[in-house]
């Protein structure tokens, strides 16, 4: 009865073959107007990402580039970079440094082509009061703080995004395997396979999944043309999206957008398998903890305090 598709990773093509495919795709001519309907038809019957073979994927990426280049008036580069060998990504966030400025939130929105209207955020920064305050279970948080200046006296901030659990409850509950964990530990969603039932959102303990309640909209001038099929390509109305550790960047050896945007260096990211990585340094030298450990979801997202006193206020 089970249609488990593990082990049928025909699509995990090698990098070289993939690059060859890209050049071929770029050579194809622009999409004639009459074919737009045919494209929508193809989308309706498109197979699951893991069931696409290398040629299918190449065609789909080429069509995606044409369609989006036309729509946003920029040259779009669509990739499906496979996971890197011997790589599992991990993240650590220094709560003693975070000032709650939300630059990470908006860098994420822009990098990942998230809808501006309705507004979707994959990172949520929670504000808590210092002292007599429940925050370990994330109760009594305030997501909508709006002071003149941050950090505010007597407050501290906990940014939350997908914790990239090793035992992801969201993946288990998906009725159609539209979301899964890649070999590098990133939990991804196939935006063309998700049926929009939102069971994953009920199952996620970290509020990390966002549903496209309406038709996503992105301004032409703000569109990021470097996209990944499983990451920052534009999403559709009626499907769920989530943080992918900027799969389009991390699989090319770059930092995520939120790491780069952080003005105080609170965000650390890297390969957990590499003993010399920054993330390994943090795990080995700091006292780290994870959110909602009692649920045993085993996140690859860690929190720590590098300074005992916190931000001066």
């Amino acid at each position, binding site marked *: *009865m*089970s*249609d488990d*598709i593990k082990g049928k990773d025909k699509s995990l093509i090698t990098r070289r073959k993939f690059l060859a495919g890209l050049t071929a795709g770029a050579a194809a001519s622009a999409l004639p107007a009459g074919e737009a309907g045919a494209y929508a038809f193809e989308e*309706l019957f498109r197979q*699951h990402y893991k069931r696409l073979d290398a040629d299918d994927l190449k065609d789909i990426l080429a069509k995606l580039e044409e369609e989006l280049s036309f729509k946003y008036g920029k040259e779009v580069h669509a990739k499906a970079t496979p996971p890197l060998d011997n790589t599992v990504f991990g993240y650590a966030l220094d709560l003693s440094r975070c000032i709650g400025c939300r630059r990470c939130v908006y860098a994420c929105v822009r990098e990942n082509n998230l809808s501006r209207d*309705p507004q979707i955020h994959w990172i*949520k920064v*929670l504000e808590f009061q210092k002292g007599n305050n*429940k925050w370990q*279970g*994330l*109760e*009594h*948080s305030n*997501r909508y703080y709006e002071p003149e200046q941050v950090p505010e006296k007597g407050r501290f901030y906990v940014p*939350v995004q997908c914790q990239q659990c090793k035992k992801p*409850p969201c993946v*288990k*509950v*998906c*009725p*159609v*395997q*539209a979301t899964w964990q890649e070999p590098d530990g990133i939990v991804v969603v196939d935006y063309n*396979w*998700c*049926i*929009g*039932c*939102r*069971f994953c*959102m*009920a*199952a*996620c*303990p*970290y*509020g990390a*999944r*966002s*549903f*496209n*309640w*309406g*038709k996503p909209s992105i301004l032409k001038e703000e569109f990021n043309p470097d996209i990944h099929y499983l990451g920052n390509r534009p999403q*559709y*109305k*009626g*499907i*769920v999206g989530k943080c992918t550790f900027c799969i389009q960047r991390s699989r090319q050896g770059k930092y995520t957008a939120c790491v780069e945007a952080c003005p105080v260096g609170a965000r650390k990211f890297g390969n957990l398998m590499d003993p010399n990585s920054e993330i390994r340094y943090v795990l080995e030298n700091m006292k780290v903890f994870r959110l909602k450990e009692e*649920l045993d979801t085993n996140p690859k997202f860690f929190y720590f305090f590098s300074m005992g006193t916190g931000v001066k206020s």
Partner: protein
Amino acid sequence: MVIDAINGILRTVVTGSREYKAWVGFLSLLALVGIVFVFRQIDQGLIATNMRDEVSWGWYIANFTFLVGVAAAAVVLVIPYYIYDFKPIGEIVLIGEIMAVAAVSMCLMFIVLDMGSAERFWHLIPMIGIFNFPQSILTWDVVVLNMYLVLNLTLVIYALSKIYAGKSYKTKLIMPFIFFSVPAAISIHTVTAFLYLGAPARPFWNTAVLAPRFIASAFCSGPAFMLIIFQIIRKTTKLKIADEALHKVAEIVTWCMAVNLFLLGSEVFKEMYSATAHIEPFNYLWNGLRGHSQLVPWIWTALIVNSIAFLILIIPSIRKNFFMLNIACAFIFIGVYIEKGMGLIFPGFIPGTLGEIYDYMPNAMELWISLGVWAIGLLIFTIGAKICIAIKTGEIGHADPSAHH
């Protein structure tokens, strides 16, 4: 013969008293209004509802959950009739099964309405799509609900065609399926409860008592509804329904409500005596939390009407008074609708996993669409029951109305 039968059935559906025609017309109108709003929802997306990321399931899933319970009506009749051979219920068991068909149809409509990308439903079809079985409990629900629908539909059609021909339908061929409908009914409640209780991210749902409570409240709400319907049927049609049959069903409802209230008490004790941080959704529901208390009047109404209904039912002499019985049934229907719908689904999400309180209530569009679904479900039931009664009373076909089939 077949053409005669189809003619007879069509004639039965289109002819009837003025009240029947008004009722069908009224339901059709409601269904139409609902469909108009469905087009608006398809056009704008689910943003047209009041649901948001913090409360990602709302009124549709609440109705779905309640209606899975109503589908139990059938099994409450099947058990005494077939297993204990309690003959008076033989007249009404088929109507219970038609109710199950209508209720499960409504469940499926609510699920499709709640899907963000319903045009991709084929992804759920085993072999063609990817059916994440057995990991995803939602796939189990797809299996058991469809199985229960097909099972009841088959049993009803088989029985009616036999009765139409003037024969007994309790054949060796069909009995195993009738017996199987009992565990099948239990399975739809259990699996639906598992959808929620299998989510440790939501402490309000993550309680083992949820599944037994689902079954207990289901065995109250469906039969309570049926008890009122049976009295309407015996007043407006030639079908004879004995008082004993109704009293037996009322007795079953009584003890199921007792179990339901007992299980509620267990939950209240567990939450209040433990008094951990996980009590927050419970407090939101019963007392209000940090100034948010919109569900409080609803849940207390549910508790009060369920308790009054139980007090009416527990005393046999009062229970046997049809006026009092009908009050109890109406109260149970309202009470369980609140408790198992908004009282179960909304607080699962409030406060959210990041501590946010989003006061969800359905908007007018969600209410109209849901009314439309109810109207379609009641149309299925009304027409199904009318055909069933016409065949059973020998108005069409060759049934012997005096025989117990």
